[in-house]
């Protein structure tokens, strides 16, 4: 029955993949995508917690007794939209960084900052 935990392992694996991309990637867009993967893993963690055996979607109808937990769904629903809004902000920052530094590679930006001082 240890396999009942497999959802957490998938989430952890994905989270670590995203984490790895965030700290390893040199390119800022790749970093944003890594962050998004990390974020998605958190979404999956919440939604899989809301799942219940024999349950159905939380839209109340007659003759159905068991529903999935609506609360994590609400939290994640709004989190997804907030996530894309913040991603857009990050991308806008990248565009401005590109205009200022003419690169989106982290080490080159760092190098330029160092040489300026």
């Amino acid at each position: 029955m240890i396999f009942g935990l497999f959802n957490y392992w998938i989430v952890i694996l994905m989270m670590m993949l995203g984490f790895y991309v965030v700290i390893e990637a040199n390119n800022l867009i790749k970093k944003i995508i890594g962050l998004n993967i990390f974020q998605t893993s958190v979404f999956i963690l919440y939604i899989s917690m809301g799942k219940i055996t024999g349950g159905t979607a939380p839209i109340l109808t007659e003759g159905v007794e068991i529903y999935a937990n609506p609360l994590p769904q609400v939290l994640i629903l709004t989190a997804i939209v907030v996530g894309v809004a913040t991603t857009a902000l990050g991308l806008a920052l990248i565009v401005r960084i590109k205009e200022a530094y003419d690169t989106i590679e982290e080490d080159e930006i760092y190098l330029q900052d160092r040489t300026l001082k």
Partner: protein
Amino acid sequence: MATATASIFLRDLFALVMLFGIFSLLTASFFLNLDAPDVAMTEAAIGAGISPILMLGTLALIRNRSAPRVKKTIRATMAPILAVTITGAALIYASFDMPYLADPQAPAHNHVAPRYIQQSLQEIGIPNAVTSVLASYRGYDTLGEVFVIFTAGIGVLALLGFMHNTSGRRYSQFADTASLDHHTILHVISKIAIPLILLFAFYVQFHGEYSPGGGFQAGVIFAVAFILYAMIYGLETVYKVVSMRLIRMTMVAGVLLYAGTGVASLFLGGNYLDYGTLAHEPVHGQHLGIILIELGVALCVASVMLSTFLCFAGRAAVRPDEMEEGDKPT
């Protein structure tokens, strides 16, 4: 999973963005499988629709397609792997204390959730428990999230938006779409599809109390319809329908409508965002309140998404020297 893994090794940013779209669509189907249709809908519209478009817009603006290969020292390669492995191992160790998947005895199912499921039909009077929790029980949270979205929209406007908004400037086509102008099939299909998408957005908005949907999803779908239109017919045509000024106004109007509903219930003698006071019957008041704030959410979300897209696209459009970049997605 595989798509997530591939995204580490890909250096071609265009393929990376496409893979990310596929990844989001798969996640959406996964959510549907876990009995969360509302979330699946949002994820499909956002993850597979808007975020790849925004990322592509960024790629068009920064005009480099692939990340150069960097020579790294052994330490620089090993350190992230080590950090990730240690964190992952710790988390897996922690997972042994977690309840099993779909276990009815799990703590998450036994505190506040049963109350939402059993009482919301009497207290709020709408079948979709997700909507009643979102709009009524946890209205404060949602108001906060709307403000976050609003702030992010303002941030993007401040970073990218105001430079090129002078009147008299001629908008050329969005960089990525310069070649779409003579695609007859796209024109015909989009002419059929866009009204349907808009109609579906309205359905999702106003039927959200009874079926999966609501303000967030409707706002996103609504914005997607306009974005599609802009991509195929060019920015100029869109600006004829909605000006940047109008979008900014609706953005503010959405937030104000939400917050104003709360203030109205305050004046009518209830708590902030307590819709029961809005009508004679508390349940009717709840209905009215939910419709109003969902409208506010949809207005705010749709205009933030649209203004963000138009900022990216408009910035590409005023710099025609970058046009040749976005033509051939290989």
